[in-house]
């Protein structure tokens, strides 16, 4: 009987631990084309070095929080495809989104590197958090072709 009770108690505790089924969805992306219209001037000039996406290039929705006090973090890093080391990409949070919870951080440019970096944090459900991406280092010396990477967002639950 005691064994059964112990198993029940541990299951309840485990259930309590895993009850926070926080989830999120990241949508969007940034296709950028650089051509003659992106030169800084007339013939002889280079590309404008810095290019900025739409302010809502990426939209994040955080859902399934237990309550508005369930704390979460968003980390960010990149996985390079065909990329060039002269290019740098950064992200900035342009809106707070909506919801009963709170949100903080991410309102200054955060360079996205190969190493996971804390981007912003909050608590509770938040919908439609807008992210803008910024590319630095564009130059004609890249040569014609395609360059790509993936920006990986990680949701961490602090409950």
């Amino acid at each position, binding site marked *: 009987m*005691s*064994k059964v009770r*112990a198993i029940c*108690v*541990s299951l309840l*505790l485990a259930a*309590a*631990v895993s009850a*926070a*089924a*926080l*989830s*999120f*969805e*990241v*949508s*969007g*992306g*940034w*296709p*950028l*084309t*650089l*051509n*003659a219209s992106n*030169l800084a*001037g*007339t*013939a*002889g*000039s*280079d590309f404008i070095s810095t290019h900025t996406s739409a302010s809502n290039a*990426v939209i994040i929705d955080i859902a399934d929080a237990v309550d508005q006090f369930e*704390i979460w*973090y968003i*980390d960010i890093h990149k996985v390079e495809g065909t990329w060039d080391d002269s290019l740098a*990409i950064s992200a900035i949070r342009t809106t707070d989104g909506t919801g009963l919870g709170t949100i903080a951080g991410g309102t200054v440019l955060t360079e996205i590197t190969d190493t996971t970096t804390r981007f912003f944090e909050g608590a509770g459900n938040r919908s439609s958090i807008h992210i803008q*991406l910024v*590319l630095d280092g564009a*130059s*004609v*010396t*890249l*040569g*014609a*072709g*395609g*360059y*790509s*990477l*993936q*920006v*990986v*967002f*990680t*949701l*961490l*639950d*602090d*409950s």
Partner: protein
Amino acid sequence: MFSRKRLTIFFIVVLMTAVGFSAFAQAVATDLIGVTITVDAIALIKVSGSDLTFAVESPGAAAAGELPVVNDSNTPTYIQYTSVVASGARKIDVKASAALPAGLKLNIRAGTPTGHGGVGTPVAGGVMVDSTGPTTDQTIITGISSCATGSGGTQGPAIYYTLSIDEATFGSLTTAGASGITLTYTLTANS
């Protein structure tokens, strides 16, 4: 059967696990988006500088018997270009709109290109236009890849022009008055 001691240890382990979950944020999900940058091929060129004027004049009484002299107070022109290629190289050609009057020849020579990237290399000695032409493209810079020379009026390679008396056809030189030609520069793929 769980003894009291074993049950206590069991609860402590479970509680520590729970505390551990609370003290350290756990990654619960990842999602990603793509960033794709497409760089298009570009070939832009412009020429900066003033039109050139040459005067073929008498060598003066003291130099009677000598060939006429060419009075040249021109300054160089400059070529600015932006080139983006996926591979291979480009060149810059110059083409005269017409041959020169008999007795004259014009040397067109590029200085060392400046800028960044693969700005190319000037053809040694430049090219020549005389009374026989040519009126087709002649290459003055080769080996241009992806580059930008700068767009300022004195950026990029200087182009030097030297008009001289062509002794081979000087006998046909006449005082025909002003005669002009147009030079056209083209940034093009290597053929």
